Protein backbone atom coordinates (compact mmCIF):
# COMPACT_ATOMS: atom_id res chain seq x y z
CA UNK A 1 0.00 0.00 0.00
CA UNK A 2 2.81 2.39 0.94
CA UNK A 3 4.73 1.40 -2.19
CA UNK A 4 1.63 2.06 -4.30
CA UNK A 5 1.30 5.47 -2.68
CA UNK A 6 4.95 6.27 -3.33
CA UNK A 7 4.77 4.95 -6.88
CA UNK A 8 1.67 7.02 -7.75
CA UNK A 9 0.84 4.67 -10.63
CA UNK A 10 4.17 5.31 -12.30
CA UNK A 11 4.16 9.09 -11.83
CA UNK A 12 5.83 9.03 -8.38
CA UNK A 13 9.17 10.36 -9.60
CA UNK A 14 7.57 13.46 -11.14
CA UNK A 15 5.08 14.09 -8.34
CA UNK A 16 7.56 13.64 -5.47
CA UNK A 17 10.23 15.65 -7.30
CA UNK A 18 7.79 18.57 -7.77
CA UNK A 19 6.68 18.52 -4.12
CA UNK A 20 10.24 18.05 -2.80
CA UNK A 21 11.72 20.89 -4.88
CA UNK A 22 8.90 23.20 -3.74
CA UNK A 23 9.19 22.41 -0.05
CA UNK A 24 13.00 22.31 0.06
CA UNK A 25 13.16 25.75 -1.64
CA UNK A 26 10.57 27.11 0.78
CA UNK A 27 12.48 25.68 3.76
CA UNK A 28 15.79 27.17 2.56
CA UNK A 29 14.23 30.63 2.05
CA UNK A 30 12.53 30.43 5.48
CA UNK A 31 15.80 29.43 7.18
CA UNK A 32 17.82 32.16 5.42
CA UNK A 33 15.22 34.87 6.12
CA UNK A 34 14.98 33.92 9.78
CA UNK A 35 18.78 33.83 10.09
CA UNK A 36 19.12 37.31 8.54
CA UNK A 37 16.39 38.71 10.83
CA UNK A 38 18.07 37.27 13.93
CA UNK A 39 21.47 38.60 12.76
CA UNK A 40 20.10 42.12 12.31
CA UNK A 41 18.30 42.01 15.68
CA UNK A 42 21.50 40.85 17.39
CA UNK A 43 23.65 43.50 15.70
CA UNK A 44 21.11 46.25 16.43
CA UNK A 45 20.92 45.25 20.12
CA UNK A 46 24.72 45.10 20.30
CA UNK A 47 25.05 48.60 18.80
CA UNK A 48 22.56 50.00 21.31
CA UNK A 49 24.38 48.33 24.19
CA UNK A 50 27.66 49.83 23.01
CA UNK A 51 26.26 53.40 23.27
CA UNK A 52 27.01 55.52 26.34
CA UNK A 53 24.44 55.17 29.14
CA UNK A 54 22.87 58.55 28.41
CA UNK A 55 22.54 57.98 24.67
CA UNK A 56 21.23 54.46 25.19
CA UNK A 57 18.57 55.81 27.53
CA UNK A 58 17.65 58.44 24.94
CA UNK A 59 17.41 55.87 22.13
CA UNK A 60 15.26 53.50 24.20
CA UNK A 61 12.97 56.35 25.30
CA UNK A 62 12.51 57.64 21.76
CA UNK A 63 12.27 54.35 19.90
CA UNK A 64 9.81 51.66 20.90
CA UNK A 65 11.33 49.45 18.20
CA UNK A 66 14.74 49.65 19.90
CA UNK A 67 13.23 48.71 23.26
CA UNK A 68 11.27 45.83 21.66
CA UNK A 69 14.39 44.45 19.98
CA UNK A 70 16.38 44.79 23.21
CA UNK A 71 13.72 42.98 25.24
CA UNK A 72 13.43 40.18 22.64
CA UNK A 73 17.22 39.80 22.67
CA UNK A 74 17.36 39.64 26.46
CA UNK A 75 14.69 36.90 26.32
CA UNK A 76 16.76 34.82 23.90
CA UNK A 77 19.86 35.25 26.10
Amino acid sequence: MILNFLNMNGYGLFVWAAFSITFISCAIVFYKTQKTLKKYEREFAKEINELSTERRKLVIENSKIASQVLSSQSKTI
Partner: protein
Amino acid sequence: MFSLFSPSNIFYWIGKLISFINSIFFILLLVALSFALIFSPPDYLQGDSVRIMYVHVPSAWIGLASFTCIALLSIFNFIFKTKNLIIVTKSIAPLGLMFTCLAIITGSLWGQPTWGTWWVWDARLTSMVILALFYVGYIVSNKLILNEERANKISSIIAIIGLINIPIIKFSVDWWNTLHQPTSVKLTGTSTIHSSMLTPLLLMFFVMMLYCALIFLMKYKTEIIRMKKKNLKRL
Protein backbone atom coordinates in the same frame (compact mmCIF):
# COMPACT_ATOMS: atom_id res chain seq x y z
CA MET B 1 -6.34 56.13 15.62
CA PHE B 2 -3.26 57.11 13.59
CA SER B 3 -0.93 55.91 16.36
CA LEU B 4 -2.10 52.40 15.40
CA PHE B 5 -0.14 52.76 12.17
CA SER B 6 3.02 54.14 13.74
CA PRO B 7 6.20 52.13 12.89
CA SER B 8 6.58 50.91 16.48
CA ASN B 9 3.00 49.60 16.55
CA ILE B 10 3.40 47.99 13.13
CA PHE B 11 6.65 46.40 14.37
CA TYR B 12 4.86 45.06 17.46
CA TRP B 13 1.98 43.57 15.42
CA ILE B 14 4.39 42.06 12.87
CA GLY B 15 6.02 40.15 15.75
CA LYS B 16 2.64 38.93 16.98
CA LEU B 17 1.53 37.93 13.45
CA ILE B 18 4.75 35.99 12.83
CA SER B 19 4.19 33.95 16.02
CA PHE B 20 0.52 33.36 15.11
CA ILE B 21 1.31 32.15 11.57
CA ASN B 22 4.12 29.96 12.94
CA SER B 23 1.70 28.33 15.37
CA ILE B 24 -0.96 27.35 12.80
CA PHE B 25 1.17 26.86 9.69
CA PHE B 26 2.26 23.22 10.10
CA ILE B 27 -1.23 21.98 10.98
CA LEU B 28 -2.69 23.66 7.87
CA LEU B 29 0.19 22.38 5.75
CA LEU B 30 -0.49 18.80 6.90
CA VAL B 31 -4.20 19.15 6.09
CA ALA B 32 -3.50 20.64 2.64
CA LEU B 33 -0.89 17.97 1.83
CA SER B 34 -3.27 15.19 2.91
CA PHE B 35 -5.90 16.52 0.52
CA ALA B 36 -3.39 17.04 -2.31
CA LEU B 37 -1.61 13.69 -2.04
CA ILE B 38 -4.18 11.31 -0.54
CA PHE B 39 -7.81 12.42 -0.64
CA SER B 40 -8.00 14.07 -4.08
CA PRO B 41 -8.73 11.65 -6.95
CA PRO B 42 -6.38 11.02 -9.88
CA ASP B 43 -7.35 12.62 -13.19
CA TYR B 44 -9.14 10.35 -15.70
CA LEU B 45 -6.56 11.23 -18.39
CA GLN B 46 -3.40 12.35 -16.58
CA GLY B 47 -3.63 9.91 -13.66
CA ASP B 48 -1.67 10.81 -10.53
CA SER B 49 0.59 13.26 -12.37
CA VAL B 50 -2.25 15.77 -11.91
CA ARG B 51 -1.15 16.13 -8.26
CA ILE B 52 1.74 18.31 -9.49
CA MET B 53 -0.98 20.91 -10.15
CA TYR B 54 -1.31 21.45 -6.37
CA VAL B 55 2.17 23.00 -6.20
CA HIS B 56 2.45 24.26 -9.80
CA VAL B 57 -0.72 26.37 -10.01
CA PRO B 58 -0.43 28.15 -6.60
CA SER B 59 3.24 28.91 -7.39
CA ALA B 60 2.28 30.47 -10.73
CA TRP B 61 -0.57 32.47 -9.14
CA ILE B 62 1.76 33.81 -6.43
CA GLY B 63 4.46 34.65 -9.00
CA LEU B 64 1.98 36.64 -11.08
CA ALA B 65 0.24 38.30 -8.11
CA SER B 66 3.55 39.33 -6.53
CA PHE B 67 4.78 41.02 -9.69
CA THR B 68 1.46 42.81 -10.23
CA CYS B 69 1.66 44.00 -6.63
CA ILE B 70 5.27 45.21 -7.07
CA ALA B 71 4.41 47.06 -10.30
CA LEU B 72 1.31 48.74 -8.85
CA LEU B 73 3.18 49.78 -5.70
CA SER B 74 6.01 51.11 -7.89
CA ILE B 75 3.49 53.30 -9.73
CA PHE B 76 2.17 54.56 -6.37
CA ASN B 77 5.75 55.15 -5.26
CA PHE B 78 6.42 57.25 -8.36
CA ILE B 79 3.41 59.41 -7.51
CA PHE B 80 3.53 59.60 -3.70
CA LYS B 81 7.24 58.87 -2.99
CA THR B 82 6.56 56.74 0.10
CA LYS B 83 9.58 54.97 1.58
CA ASN B 84 7.34 52.31 3.14
CA LEU B 85 6.24 51.11 -0.31
CA ILE B 86 9.85 50.53 -1.35
CA ILE B 87 10.39 48.32 1.71
CA VAL B 88 7.23 46.38 0.82
CA THR B 89 8.21 45.83 -2.83
CA LYS B 90 11.78 44.86 -1.87
CA SER B 91 10.37 42.29 0.57
CA ILE B 92 7.98 40.77 -2.00
CA ALA B 93 10.40 40.48 -4.97
CA PRO B 94 12.56 37.50 -3.82
CA LEU B 95 9.42 35.55 -2.92
CA GLY B 96 7.87 36.27 -6.31
CA LEU B 97 11.03 35.16 -8.10
CA MET B 98 11.18 31.94 -6.11
CA PHE B 99 7.57 31.04 -6.87
CA THR B 100 7.91 31.95 -10.56
CA CYS B 101 10.95 29.63 -10.82
CA LEU B 102 9.04 26.93 -8.93
CA ALA B 103 6.12 27.29 -11.35
CA ILE B 104 8.51 26.83 -14.29
CA ILE B 105 10.31 23.84 -12.73
CA THR B 106 7.18 22.03 -11.52
CA GLY B 107 5.51 22.81 -14.86
CA SER B 108 8.43 21.14 -16.61
CA LEU B 109 8.07 18.11 -14.30
CA TRP B 110 4.37 17.98 -15.20
CA GLY B 111 5.07 18.48 -18.90
CA GLN B 112 7.27 15.39 -19.27
CA PRO B 113 4.62 12.76 -18.39
CA THR B 114 1.74 14.78 -19.92
CA TRP B 115 3.16 16.27 -23.12
CA GLY B 116 6.18 13.98 -23.50
CA THR B 117 8.65 16.87 -23.25
CA TRP B 118 10.29 18.85 -20.45
CA TRP B 119 10.14 22.15 -22.32
CA VAL B 120 8.67 23.88 -25.37
CA TRP B 121 9.07 27.51 -26.32
CA ASP B 122 5.35 28.17 -26.41
CA ALA B 123 3.65 31.43 -25.42
CA ARG B 124 2.74 30.60 -21.79
CA LEU B 125 6.09 29.06 -20.89
CA THR B 126 8.15 31.73 -22.63
CA SER B 127 6.19 34.58 -21.04
CA MET B 128 6.75 32.99 -17.61
CA VAL B 129 10.52 32.90 -18.28
CA ILE B 130 10.31 36.59 -19.25
CA LEU B 131 8.53 37.27 -15.93
CA ALA B 132 11.39 35.54 -14.07
CA LEU B 133 13.87 37.76 -15.99
CA PHE B 134 11.94 40.88 -14.97
CA TYR B 135 12.15 39.72 -11.34
CA VAL B 136 15.92 39.18 -11.72
CA GLY B 137 16.29 42.64 -13.28
CA TYR B 138 14.29 44.20 -10.43
CA ILE B 139 16.30 42.49 -7.67
CA VAL B 140 19.71 42.95 -9.32
CA SER B 141 19.12 46.67 -9.97
CA ASN B 142 18.25 47.14 -6.31
CA LYS B 143 21.36 45.27 -5.19
CA LEU B 144 23.95 46.55 -7.68
CA ILE B 145 23.10 50.26 -7.91
CA LEU B 146 24.62 51.87 -4.84
CA ASN B 147 22.73 55.16 -5.04
CA GLU B 148 19.49 54.23 -3.27
CA GLU B 149 17.30 56.79 -4.99
CA ARG B 150 18.57 55.81 -8.45
CA ALA B 151 18.19 52.11 -7.62
CA ASN B 152 14.57 52.65 -6.60
CA LYS B 153 13.85 54.63 -9.75
CA ILE B 154 15.39 52.05 -12.13
CA SER B 155 13.84 49.05 -10.37
CA SER B 156 10.45 50.78 -10.40
CA ILE B 157 10.75 51.39 -14.16
CA ILE B 158 11.62 47.69 -14.67
CA ALA B 159 8.55 46.67 -12.62
CA ILE B 160 6.24 49.03 -14.53
CA ILE B 161 7.52 47.80 -17.93
CA GLY B 162 7.16 44.22 -16.69
CA LEU B 163 3.50 44.84 -15.92
CA ILE B 164 2.83 44.62 -19.69
CA ASN B 165 3.86 40.96 -19.49
CA ILE B 166 1.16 40.03 -16.93
CA PRO B 167 -1.89 40.12 -19.27
CA ILE B 168 0.27 38.43 -21.93
CA ILE B 169 0.86 35.51 -19.51
CA LYS B 170 -2.80 35.43 -18.49
CA PHE B 171 -4.25 35.43 -22.01
CA SER B 172 -1.41 33.63 -23.83
CA VAL B 173 -3.39 30.38 -23.79
CA ASP B 174 -6.34 32.12 -25.47
CA TRP B 175 -4.42 34.31 -27.94
CA TRP B 176 -2.00 31.67 -29.25
CA ASN B 177 -2.17 27.99 -30.00
CA THR B 178 -0.17 26.51 -27.11
CA LEU B 179 0.53 23.15 -25.52
CA HIS B 180 -0.50 24.61 -22.17
CA GLN B 181 -4.12 23.93 -21.22
CA PRO B 182 -6.59 26.87 -21.00
CA THR B 183 -7.61 28.36 -17.64
CA SER B 184 -9.66 25.95 -15.49
CA VAL B 185 -10.20 28.16 -12.44
CA LYS B 186 -12.06 31.35 -13.28
CA LEU B 187 -12.88 34.22 -10.96
CA THR B 188 -15.71 35.33 -13.25
CA GLY B 189 -17.69 32.48 -14.76
CA THR B 190 -17.86 28.79 -13.97
CA SER B 191 -14.65 26.91 -13.25
CA THR B 192 -14.09 23.74 -15.28
CA ILE B 193 -12.41 21.91 -12.41
CA HIS B 194 -14.25 19.46 -10.15
CA SER B 195 -14.69 20.45 -6.51
CA SER B 196 -12.73 17.34 -5.39
CA MET B 197 -9.68 18.91 -7.08
CA LEU B 198 -10.55 22.55 -6.48
CA THR B 199 -10.63 22.09 -2.68
CA PRO B 200 -7.03 20.80 -2.35
CA LEU B 201 -5.89 23.39 -4.89
CA LEU B 202 -7.38 26.26 -2.86
CA LEU B 203 -6.06 24.75 0.39
CA MET B 204 -2.53 24.52 -1.01
CA PHE B 205 -2.86 28.08 -2.31
CA PHE B 206 -3.95 29.28 1.14
CA VAL B 207 -1.02 27.52 2.83
CA MET B 208 1.45 28.96 0.31
CA MET B 209 -0.05 32.43 0.82
CA LEU B 210 0.44 32.01 4.58
CA TYR B 211 4.05 31.03 3.93
CA CYS B 212 4.46 34.15 1.76
CA ALA B 213 2.94 36.31 4.49
CA LEU B 214 5.36 34.82 7.01
CA ILE B 215 8.44 35.44 4.83
CA PHE B 216 7.20 38.89 3.83
CA LEU B 217 6.68 39.91 7.48
CA MET B 218 10.13 38.63 8.46
CA LYS B 219 11.76 40.48 5.55
CA TYR B 220 9.78 43.64 6.34
CA LYS B 221 10.86 43.44 9.99
CA THR B 222 14.49 42.99 8.86
CA GLU B 223 14.22 46.08 6.63
CA ILE B 224 12.80 48.17 9.51
CA ILE B 225 15.67 47.10 11.80
CA ARG B 226 18.19 47.79 9.01
CA MET B 227 16.82 51.33 8.66
CA LYS B 228 16.82 51.88 12.42
CA LYS B 229 20.42 50.63 12.52
CA LYS B 230 21.39 53.17 9.87
CA ASN B 231 19.68 55.95 11.85
CA LEU B 232 21.50 54.86 15.01
CA LYS B 233 24.85 55.38 13.25
CA ARG B 234 23.79 58.92 12.29
CA LEU B 235 23.13 59.84 15.94
